[in-house]
């Protein structure tokens, strides 16, 4: 028989071993240094902060400035910023711009030779949908039931209704970009839960209808254009977006909407925005004070930093041995962006809008895309204020990106009128001449009514809105972006320019997206 000591020893051993085993079987460890879904909205400020993030999706690339904790993956984070990608897609293949760097996928954007794996186009597509996803999540988190569940105060609930309209504006804005660039894309709204199955592809018409109906529904709920609301989606911004969609409706749906475009633009012009008496200020570090800007993407050298956006445009517009970086309020030039000769030669002597063009040591012709000294840098944007002060940081700029501004609305009005959208031709002429008077500093270069043709408007748009991210869309609307009617340097890959196929009016859907979402059909030609 075992003695007591033995039994005690056995029992003790087993008890100790079992104690170890019973000590813990709970594997849960909640994050400590992170705010989870469970407690994110305990603060009433969270709704503002989340909406601000939907806005900042246009301005920054991640939650760490200038780069870090990126929003999207698969591309260098600095490249992944919304404005930089949008701007590159609208400018580089056009007759206005070349970018001389050899980064993978970049050279082919200058020449309309891109394919469906082009990293910039892939990232642009995902940027569009990142905005859509953020807006959808905001709408889900602010649904009435969720607000009631969290016991949100009535006053805040009312304010959140405005926020929801703004989120829907931002979603519509990105769908407009997606429709403009990629054509038929999925239509995902807040009714699709996170982690849902791949959505169906919508037609371009369906996206168009969605954007129009959304804007029509929310414009009354958007905030007014006041200095306090600078940077937010105001009613004027909503009308401007609607006008843009109508102006390009023929491209999107086959049916022109000139009259609707003209009416929406009239609303914009009727808003408190006015032309800036200083024609340079809308492009400088203090452009947040310009009355002309209807919808900016805000940047700040210290508080809203990115390697994309205006930081990219201003740094890349500077180079060579003669341009002084400090003249632009920056430290260090990136030697990238110049004009194609067609854009440069569109300006006549005395046009103040050409005053910043830096010609010394540069050739007009672009013999080589990679050679900084081939092509004239436009140097339109600056990180110095209209008063000459440098921005708050020499690397990251204070200059906001003027996505929509009143001068554009003036030219859109003129175009809608000339294209038969009704309205007042004399007013159209007056608007165009207002821009020319501001540019030349006198009325000697004003045009007459017969001179206000579509060709003139297209050229004037290039002069007034040079490098502002409109050019590809304009050329597509005028039927000149592809084909052989209008050739420019490096169109199709040669310096003289060759005709390109019409399918390049649309960008390809990303090759990776076709795999992730088997419901999608690639755009023809790719």
């Amino acid at each position: 028989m075992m003695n007591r000591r033995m039994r005690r020893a056995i029992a003790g051993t087993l008890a100790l071993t079992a104690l170890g085993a019973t000590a813990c079987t709970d594997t849960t460890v909640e994050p400590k240094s992170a705010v989870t879904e469970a407690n994110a909205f305990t603060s009433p400020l969270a709704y503002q902060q989340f909406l601000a993030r939907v806005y900042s999706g246009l301005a920054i690339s991640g939650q760490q400035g200038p780069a870090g904790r990126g929003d999207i993956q698969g591309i260098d984070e600095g490249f992944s910023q919304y404005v930089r990608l949008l701007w590159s897609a609208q400018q580089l293949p056009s007759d206005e711009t070349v970018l001389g760097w050899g980064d993978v996928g970049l050279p082919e954007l200058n020449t309309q030779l891109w394919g469906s794996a082009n990293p910039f186009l892939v990232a642009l597509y995902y940027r569009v949908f990142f905005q859509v996803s953020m807006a959808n999540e905001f709408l889900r988190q602010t649904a009435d039931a969720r607000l009631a569940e969290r016991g949100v105060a009535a006053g805040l609930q009312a304010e959140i209704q405005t926020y929801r309209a703004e989120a829907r504006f931002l979603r519509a804005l990105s769908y407009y970009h997606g429709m403009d660039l990629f054509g038929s894309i999925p239509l995902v709204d807040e009714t699709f839960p996170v982690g849902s199955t791949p959505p169906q592809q919508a037609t371009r018409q369906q996206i168009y209808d969605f954007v129009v109906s959304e804007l029509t529904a929310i414009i009354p709920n958007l905030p007014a254009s006041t200095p306090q609301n600078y940077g937010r989606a105001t009613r004027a911004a909503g009308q401007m977006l609607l006008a843009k969609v109508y102006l390009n409706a023929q491209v999107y749906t086959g049916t022109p909407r000139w009259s609707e475009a003209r009416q929406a633009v009239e609303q914009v012009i009727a808003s408190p925005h006015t032309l800036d008496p200083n024609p340079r200020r809308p492009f400088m570090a203090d452009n947040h004070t310009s009355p002309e800007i209807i919808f900016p993407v805000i940047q700040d050298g210290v508080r809203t930093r990115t390697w994309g956006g205006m930081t990219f445009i201003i740094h890349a517009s500077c180079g060579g041995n003669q341009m002084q970086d400090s003249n632009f309020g920056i430290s260090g030039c990136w030697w990238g962006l110049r004009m194609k000769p067609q854009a440069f030669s569109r300006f006549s002597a005395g046009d103040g809008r050409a005053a910043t063009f830096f010609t010394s040591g540069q050739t007009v012709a672009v013999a080589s895309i990679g050679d900084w000294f081939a092509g004239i840098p436009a140097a339109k944007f600056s990180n110095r204020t209209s008063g000459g002060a440098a921005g708050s940081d020499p690397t990251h700029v204070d200059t906001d990106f003027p996505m929509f501004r009143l001068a554009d609305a003036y030219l859109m009005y003129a175009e809608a009128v000339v294209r038969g959208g009704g309205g007042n031709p004399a007013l159209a002429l007056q608007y165009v001449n207002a821009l020319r008077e501001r540019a030349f500093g006198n009325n000697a270069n004003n045009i007459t009514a017969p001179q206000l043709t579509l060709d003139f408007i297209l050229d004037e748009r290039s002069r007034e809105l040079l490098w502002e991210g409109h050019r590809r869309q304009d050329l597509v609307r005028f039927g000149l972006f592809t084909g052989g009617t209008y050739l420019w340097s490096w169109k199709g890959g040669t310096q003289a320019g060759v005709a390109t196929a019409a399918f390049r009016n649309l960008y390809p859907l990303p090759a990776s997206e076709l795999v992730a979402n088997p419901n999608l059909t690639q755009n023809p030609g790719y």
Partner: protein
Amino acid sequence: MLMRRFGSYLALAAGLLGAAPLAAQGGTGTVRGRVVDDGQRPLQGVTVSVAGKTVLSSASGRFVLTEVPAGPQAVKARRLGFAPVSQDVTLLAGQTLDLELVMTIQEVQLAEIVTTGYGEQTAGSVTGAVSQVSTEEFNKGRIVSPAELIAAKVPGVQIVDNNEPGGGLAIRIRGATSINASSEPLIVIDGMPIGTSNGGGTSAGRDALNFLNPNEIETITVLRDASAAAIYGANGANGVVLVTTKAGKARQAPQVEYTVTTSASEVTRLPTMLNADQFRAAVTTFAPNNAAQLRNENTNWFGQVGRTAFGQEHTLAVSGSSDRTTYRLSLNYLNQDGVIQPAGVERIGIGINLSQRLLNDRLNVKLNLRGARNSDQFLPGGLLGNTAQMGPTQPVFDAAGVGGFYDWPGNALTSPDNPVAISQLAVDRGITFRGFGNVQAQYSVPGIEGLTANANLGFDVTDVDRATFDPSTLHAQRKTGNGGSTTRRNQSLVNAVVETYLTYNAPGKVGPGALELTGGYSYTRSSSNELRLEANGLATDFLGINGVPAARVAQNFQDIQESKLISFFGRANYNIDDKYLLAFSLRRDGSSRFGPANAWGMFPSASLGWRLSEESFLKGGAFSDLKLRASWARTGNQAFANYQQYVAFLPSDQGTSYFFNGQFIPTIRPNAVDPNIKWEATRTVNVGLDFAFKGLPVTGTIDVYDKETSDLIFTVPVAAGTNLSNFVTTNIGSMRNRGVELGLSIRALEGRNGGLGWTADFNAARNQNELLSINPAAVGAAAQRILTGEVAGGVGTTIQVLQPGSPVNSFFVYQTRRGPDGLPIRVNNPAGANVASDSALYVDQNGDNRINVDDRRAFRDPAPRWIIGHSSYLTYRKFDLGFTLRAWLGNYVYNNVASNLGTYAEVGRASPYNLHTSVLQTGFAGPQYLSDFYVEDGSFLRMDNLTLGYSFDLNRKPARFFITAQNVFTITGYSGVDPTAGLRGIDNNIFPRARTFTGGLSLRL
């Protein structure tokens, strides 16, 4: 609930209680005693038989046989690998005879004790693919990190260091099994698993084992196949490395050992850049605008930042034993400079191993304690890159320059920085304190013969302090307007382990064979608290890394990471006459990293061994041992980031607020998650053969394996709009590693009586990796590709791809059209630069008549097809000579220095860059980053190690003098710095490999 989980566990214990022995009766006696080897170490599992009764010896070597008939008897002891012993005794009725049976090893390769997870086994009865390397076989010379000890020694184990002394080091056992989780094996030191938190235990970018003095390691055991590793469940998929440190030996008089070594290292291969004349010619021809900037010096920039690096190491160890106590204390000091200034490492380490037997030897308590302070000097960022870029026509010093250093005029953003200034002014250093230890208690439970209770309590505490400082006077700071910057990173890591388990060696046979059971519980908790500070625009440079002055921008971060792993495990080994060997194990792991729906995972294994040489039909044959092994196992990998299952609303930092309602406000962003995230699962099948020949001094082993990893933790694109980002980390995709491994050991010459002795080891392993799928739902659609492998040149340029059907990280490049000379075809402009258009230079893979990034293809990959190692050890009289050779075949390397600087465009920058000499061959006018011309065959043969020793007696105690050369020579066709350029095969300004000569003396005092 809980009880059910332990049902079998308790049932086992209950069953054991009934097995208590009965008291002796009349007419019989008791034979009991201890079986030991000739070094007095107790032998477990020895079959002791007398008068038809059989028993197995316990862990302490003890055995008891009762009811043995009185009279003369022969007591026989038998164990695999040992010469059988028979002792005649005469037993009186009622007598209890005490015996000590001493057994001597007959066949080393069978008798050797092999460490396994939660136990040990004799090599002859192991059923998995397990390799053990011990002190005398280790690589010699200046070795900072323990894993280098077994480089080229174990088949299928790839060890890749980054050439820096004490630098990061990667171990791959049978190829990479993961893409986004870690592919590093689990490392267990004296029973204490380390690094179970993601990256936990690492110290500021250095190898996690640097705290451990390699001289203090007794054996390193690699569990290569999954059946051996499966007892570690969700940490076992990448294989397991078991490290056993040296302990005091039983019955050993106190002994003091002292070893001193000094070393000198020189740089071997460097990037081949243009010399001053070539550089001047390139600038004058291709960027005449820049010619005015050139000076007339002839500076070898690599020579300026390089140096002959010296090192020294002292190890003092005191060991010994008393009756029931063994101890070993060690003290280690190492100081090794790197061949590029100011790289270097300094370490002070102590170690204590203490073992105490208590309670009539029933309780054995072992204490292992290690403490170390590592001081690392890292190369400041950009040093090597700027050394390559800096023009050789320019001077190092310039009296008019800031701080007396020369800088290119114009202060352009892209101008190279003077590397000598970086080397001398910038600081990047880390100090790591590491305390590591555990207490193991092993208790032979009285009353139940063969039952042992084990407890293991361990801790691993790391405190890291990393600081960088770039003074405002540095060119890089001035040109960016940064104005001086400093960073601090303080991280505390704590890892605590509690493990309890029972082992039961049935004292008699259970059925036809011997049974051994192990079952237990393990609890690991890891936490990390990191504080980080980054400051730019410093008010003064005066404080250096010793203070943080007022700064233009200062940001602080804190990050707490915690994780838990809770496990239940069990194993059964069944051995029928050393002929049929069976092993099963099962582990159930719960991890805080798994989503609630998948909180627990089950990881089983089964293996069997058949010693054919024991069968009658082979007994008279050529084999002294022939064992066929087969195993199947499922292991897991949970070495991925914490909190993947939680939607976090990530706040913006102060640089990413947004202007809303009249002010800049912080923002919050929800991240994309998969709430059901779980372990990666690896299924492994292994078939192996161990063999030894009669009359031939050759033993060997062959293994064939197939590993398939599914549910890869993979960050993959998701359908746009369906989640909160375009990529989500989820369990998707699968990959496979298949291969064969061969190990041979030849005692060619015995070297008796001071004659020539020669032992040769040879190993070879072939592994083929293939990514099977990324998104199984996308079958039939265009192949999904994920780009990876960022390189220098352009921004965000990637050179590798993950795509089904290709090995992971295959290079993803254009196929270059080549002329008859094998070089890329040329279309020269008047100046002589190659301006061939993309369509002339590259093959149009998709046939759309234009060359764009869609024309890249997967081409070669960085993993070697074959890894071959050879070690020889020769002795003659008092001399010994050892060397290690290593070869990789079929590994490819992207020569990034050549692709980035091998174009005349680079002399056209605001300040010209020096060019890589490949431009003289290609003539490229512009960069061709994606050309397969830069993907080079990195196959090589290298003599890693050559040691000559001389043994002699000093004061009648053994002493040895030795000299070692490391990295003696490398034969390769690769043109860059080092064909082992990391696991990713990207040679981009990597630290050059040093050739090191070490001389040393070992003494006993």
